[in-house]
Every structure is written in C-alpha cells, then in structure tokens.
C-alpha cells in the first residue's frame, strides 16, 4: 500500500460522495427537483468536493512535512559520538541512512549505530504512513458527512461549487507565476556565483564575448571575456530577419485564408501551414546550413558582396519559415472573429474587399494580430538549433546580415553541454545568460502590453 493507493481511495470516496449528495438532494426535494435551488448534480459535486478536497490537501501537506520530521527525529536520536559536525557530513549521513533503508548503495560500510538509525528511520516512516492513512480517510469521511448534512432544499450548492471551481481557475492561472518563480530560482544561484567572478556590468555592457578560458587547470586562459552585448545584438538581428519573413507571409496568408479562400481551401491550407511549426528544428538547421547558406553565399559572390558562409541571413530566413504558422494560424482565427457587421458596413459604403480588409478588419483585429506577432517573436528568440547549425558561434557585434552572428540561446546550449567542469565561469555564464535574457524579454513584454493596450482602447 502506498500513497498512490490512498489517493485512489479518496477519489473513490469522492465518487461515493457524489452519489450520496445527489440522492440526498433528491430526497430533500421529495422527488420534485424543481424546488431545489440548484440542479441535483451540483449537490453531488458539493459533497464530492467536500469529501475529496480537504483529504487531498491534508495528504499533500503530510507528504511534504513528514520526511522533514522523520529526518530530524532520526538524526537527533543519533549517538552524539558519531553526530556529524558540519552540514555536508550531516546530509551525507542522512542520505546513507535513507539509502540503507531502501536497500540502496551507500557511501560507506554501515556501522551498528547507522544500522540502528536506519531501523528507527523505517519504524518512524511506517508510523507516519499509517497515521497519514488514518488521518486522510477520517478527514474524507468527516468532510463527506459534513457536506451531506449541509444539504437542504434551499442550500445554494451551485454557488458553493462554482466558488471552488473559480478558485481552481485562479490556481491554474497562477501556474504561470509559479513557473516564472521556478525559472528564476533555478537560474539565480548559479548566476550569483558567475557574477562573483565576472563583474555584473562587464557582463551586461561588455561588447566582447569570447569564453576562451582553459578547460584544464594547468592551462592558462586566453582571452576570457564575457560581454553579452554581441549575443543580444545577434539575437535581435536574427529575430528581425525572421519576422521580416514570417510577418508579411504569415499575415497575408491569414488574410487570404480568412477573407478570400473557400472553406475547403482553408481547411487544407491552415493545417498545412501548421505542419511548418512542427518540423523538428534539426531539419530546419540542416536546411539552413546546407541549402540556404551556400545559396546566399553564391548570390552574394555573384553581385560582389562579401558573404560569410555562416550568415545571419540564412538562419533568419529559415527561422522565419518556421514561425510562419504562429502568425498565420492565430491571425486567421482573429480575423475570422471580426464581426460580419463591420464588413457589411464597409461594403455598404462601397469599399472593395481589399479596402475593407486594410481599413476596417485589420485595425479591428489588431490586438489579436499583435499577440500572434509577439508569440512568433518569442519563439524566434527562444529558438536554438537553427542558429547553432547555420549561424555558428562567432560573436560579432554587427548589423550586417551577411556576417556570422551568434545568439543567447546558442551560447547557453554550447556552454551547458561542453566538456569544461560544471562550476567553471563558462558553464555558470549559461545560467547568467538565461537569467538576463529572461529579464530582457520581460521588459519587452511589458512595453508590448502597454502598446497593445493603447491600440485596444482605440478600436474597442
């Protein structure tokens, strides 16, 4: 028996609660459900939630707290002579006790004191577990009984249930915040260690990126400079090129699909474009590096331009293709939802279809279209493989699309999977880059939100 089984029991009780609640409400209404405040199913839901919710909450809290208490009790019960002195040794011994208790590998031979501690650990754990089972089942039963007792003809079950569901909706929307907190937390410690070695402003405003520091101790680092500006400039350049491709193609496709095409054509074209978003980026990478880049180089040489074989242009163009569906599909939905009355009004004034689209529909759909563009930009900023394969790792501070540039994401990946030791400045720089990119895009999004607000007010 484990906690998973316990959850099944609670879910089972909740289902039973649903039936009980429903039956009870019908009984309270003496068979005539019309005189109830809410539909019988709401009474059922109410009892189910009253039974399940507190039980699951208790279970979750118990599962989080119990290990802490057990650990503390076991460790404080240790013989003082073998009591570890510092925090590292403490956690190591604790891990050994835990590993021993589950028949796992340990870092040392088990001494009798450790074996005794392990036995204590196991005993405490099983006491904890069984008291949890009893507690949770009791709470579930009590909750069921209480919720059932609440039911009467005038009890507003729907309002109660909806309140709970609304709380659930709020929790769901908070997951975005939690994810953000999680991301910052998982980046910040390594970033702080990085900024202890490389000054914060050198990193943020330095214009030279060259992590040529040594991998082995006996080597001397060559020019190890961590100036992130070229990386951000490269990211912006490639994103701009990508949007120059995806923006017009995507938007025009969306307009055509929503306004001109017959439903059959749209039914084929829309999913077809969506396939573009799902082609693995490795494929786009090969396409960019082996087809597009040599082609651009050839053209460039033809007209006397000096084109690097790894150009920002190749990576940007191909990335633009990849994000077309983000613009086209979402814009298509938005354009479709512009009320027909606006179109009819415009036609009635004698405008042609294209005039209607340009002067009425696009402005009306603008907030949604901006949202689609923002999503596409986001995707372009976050994309890695295409740039790794087609634009390379050379950090040039340039606005020339024919030169090689590199992006933040490429550097993060390269630094993380490298052969250097994990706490070297190089690996830590990946975390710092991630953190800074996070805040840069946050800033951009705040600005974008402001802009969207402004337009939205104009056309509402």
């Amino acid at each position, binding site marked *: 028996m*484990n*906690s*998973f089984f*316990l*959850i099944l029991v609670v*879910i089972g009780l909740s289902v039973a609660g649903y039936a009980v609640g429903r039956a009870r409400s019908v009984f309270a209404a003496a068979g005539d459900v019309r005189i109830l405040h809410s539909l019988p*199913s*709401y009474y059922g*839901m109410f009892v*189910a939630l009253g039974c399940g919710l507190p039980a*699951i909450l208790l*279970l*979750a809290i118990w*599962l989080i707290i119990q290990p802490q208490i057990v650990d503390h009790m076991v460790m404080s019960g240790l013989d003082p002579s073998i009591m570890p002195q510092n925090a*590292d040794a403490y956690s*190591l011994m604790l*891990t050994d006790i*835990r*590993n021993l208790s*589950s*028949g*796992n*590998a*340990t*870092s040392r031979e088990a001494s009798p004191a450790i074996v005794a501690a392990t036995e204590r650990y196991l005993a405490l754990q099983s006491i904890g577990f069984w008291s949890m089972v009893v507690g949770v089942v009791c709470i579930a039963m009590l909750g069921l009984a209480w919720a059932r007792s609440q039911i009467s003809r005038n009890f507003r079950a729907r309002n109660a249930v909806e309140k709970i569901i609304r709380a659930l909706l709020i929790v769901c929307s908070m997951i975005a915040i939690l994810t953000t907190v999680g991301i910052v937390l998982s980046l910040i410690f390594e970033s702080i260690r990085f900024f202890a070695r490389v000054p914060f402003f050198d990193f943020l405003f330095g214009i030279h990126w*060259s992590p*040529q*520091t*040594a*991998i*082995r*101790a006996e*080597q*001397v*680092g*060559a*020019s190890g400079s961590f100036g992130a500006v070229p990386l951000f400039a490269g990211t912006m350049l490639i994103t701009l090129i990508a949007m120059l491709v995806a923006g017009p193609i995507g938007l025009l496709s969306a307009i055509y699909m929503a306004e001109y095409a017959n439903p059959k054509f749209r039914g084929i074209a829309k999913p077809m474009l969506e396939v573009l978003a799902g082609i693995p980026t490795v494929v786009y*990478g*090969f396409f960019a590096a*082996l087809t597009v*880049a*040599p082609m651009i180089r050839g053209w460039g040489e033809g007209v006397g331009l000096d084109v690097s*074989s*790894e150009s920002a242009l190749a990576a940007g163009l191909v990335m633009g293709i990849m994000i077309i569906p983000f613009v086209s599909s979402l814009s298509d939905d938005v354009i479709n939802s512009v009320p027909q009355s606006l179109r009819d009004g415009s036609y009635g004034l004698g405008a042609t279809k294209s005039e209607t689209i340009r002067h009425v529909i696009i402005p009306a759909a603008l907030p949604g279209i901006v949202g689609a563009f923002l999503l596409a930009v986001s995707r372009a900023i976050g994309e890695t493989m295409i740039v790794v*394969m087609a634009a*390379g*790792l*050379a950090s*040039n501070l340039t606005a020339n699309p024919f*030169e090689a540039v590199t992006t933040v994401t490429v550097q993060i990946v*390269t630094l*993380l*999977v*490298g*052969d*250097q*030791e*994990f*706490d070297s400045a*190089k690996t830590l720089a990946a975390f710092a880059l991630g953190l800074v990119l996070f805040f840069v895009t946050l800033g951009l999004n705040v600005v974008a939100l402001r802009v969207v607000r402004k337009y939205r007010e104009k056309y509402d």
Partner: protein
Amino acid sequence: MLRNSIIKAIPLALAGVIAVAAAAEARDQIRIVGSSTVFPFSTTVAETFGKTSGFKTPVVESTGSGGGLKLFCSGVGVQHPDITNASRRIKKSEVELCAKNGVADIVEVKIGFDGIVIGNAKSGATLNLTKQQIFLALAAEVPVDGKIVKNPYNKWSDIDKSLPDQAIEVLGPPPTSGTRDAFVELAMRPGAKSFKMLADMRKADKKGFRKISDSMREDGKFIEAGENDNLIVQKLQANPAALGIFGFSFLDQNSDKIKGANVAGVSPTFENIAGGDYGISRSLYFYVKSAHIGVVPGIQEYVTEFTSEKAIGDEGYLTDKGLIPLPGADREKYRAAAANKTNLTM
C-alpha cells in the same frame, strides 16, 4: 460537470505518482552519462553487453563531460548515475566535489584515443601543413619580424608560398569542447614553440606564452562551428575552400567526400594515429562509482566488456567505430585497475 471532475482528477492522480516516484526504487539497469565524444563507443559496448550478457542494456546519456561529472559526483545511490564518460581527465575540483557528496571511491579507465583531423572536401587542394603553419593560420597573435602582432595572414599562400592561394577559412570546435582543448595543446602550442622567440618567452613567462599559443583568432577566419561533426563534414563538401577540424571517425566514414590534411608530413590514417606518428589526438576515459558495484547489477561485467581485447583491442569492434586503441601495456594496466577496483589517483 462530470467532465470537469475527470479533468480535476488528473492532477490529483499525478500528485499520487509524485509520491510513488519519490521513493528511491532499486534499479536493475546501469545508467551512464557524460561526453558526447565517448557516446558512440559507450553505446556500442552497452548494446553488445545487453545482447550477450543477459543484463538489461545500460542507458547512456550524452550530457557533455562537465555535465556528466557533475551528475556523477552528486552522490551515492541509485538515483545517481553509475558511470560517467569523459573526453578529458577528471579534475581535482571534481574529485573534491565527489568526495564531499560521499563518492569517495572512483575507478578510472582510459579506453583509447580520438584522432583529431584537419580536413577539406575531396575537390579542394591537398594540404601539407606543419604545426607552425597551423599556428600561423589560426592564432590570434603571431610573431612577425620579431614582434608579436595581430594575425596578418588572410590566405594560406601568405604563410607559405607552397600552400594554395586561397583564403583561410577553418571550421573548428568551440572553446567549451575537449577537442578544441586537445587541438590547442597538440597543434597550436608546438607550432608556437617552433619560433625561437616564443620558445624563449615560454621559459621566462609561461603565462604570456600560453596566452599567445592558446588564443584562436576571432576575425572570422577561424569559425567556431559547434560539435556536430557530420554538419562540419557536409559544410566542407558545400564549400571546398574551407577546412574543418573534427574527429577521425567522421573522416573514416566519409573518405569518399573529404580528405585529411597531412600534418608534419604524416597523413591522418588509423595506423598513423594508433602508432603515435600523427600527433593530434585526445584521450578518452570513463569513471565508475565503486559503491554501486554489486548494488546495480552488471556494472562489473560492463566494465569487463568495455576493457576486453574484443572491444578496445587492436582489432576490437570499437576500432570499427573509429576508436584509436591504447598501446597494449596501457590496456593491461587499465584492465587490471578495473578488475581490482583500483581507486583513482590524481
């Protein structure tokens, strides 16, 4: 409403799985992490081991040497990997991290070499390079007329009249790569040392010398191209004027499309690299957590398979995959170390 309750049940069920998964369960499958360079060899051994021994085939992850050692050193117990592959030796700081986390006993096994070749497309010029020429072509700063200046060479023929009249363009590994590290040590440094001026400097000011010998140029002639060697090979084909630095196994497999440049008169063939005549190669290792031997089934057998003559011997199956074998005596030494679980000494 019912649909709603089903939807709600899912996160709850997942919470249950969390609780189940949190308990460390016994593992009957070896877990290996580490370098992407050792990955092809390690996976070949793992597969053969899985097919012949009756144990489950180990799971081999490609995480990079640094990431692998970090995972390896994070503790003892089945939730941590048993073996890590590395394309460089473990560092002192990593051994200390290991010890701090209770990973005190580590067995080190060196499995062979990975040849590093400089190559270009079949249609390009055949190159005969000296290490000095390589240094002159790729270093950020080079000595010209007794002074250290920013690298002035744009074409190969600027360095030496015998070299082709084409622009210098070399695709190579990034500074996070062990291949780059080995290339710098085995090609660039000897190249730099061949100048008397720099050799003198090395005696007086080692740091200053290394700064010159280890710095690759950043003006677009040397292009850092990531670690996908297949991509480098294909880029070379698309651009016959470019050279690339990559692993020997990729030259071996693509001998109809690309060719290796001779370095100091020696061509990069299997025999020349194995014999030590072709000087640019790097050592490959793996590290085993002794505490796991006997707990996770099959580790000892896997290590035996990996160190056997049939795998890493002169005609072992790993040579088909491009591994350059160690000299016989070294193989003996590491085989014995693996069998006796000899602890790593730095």
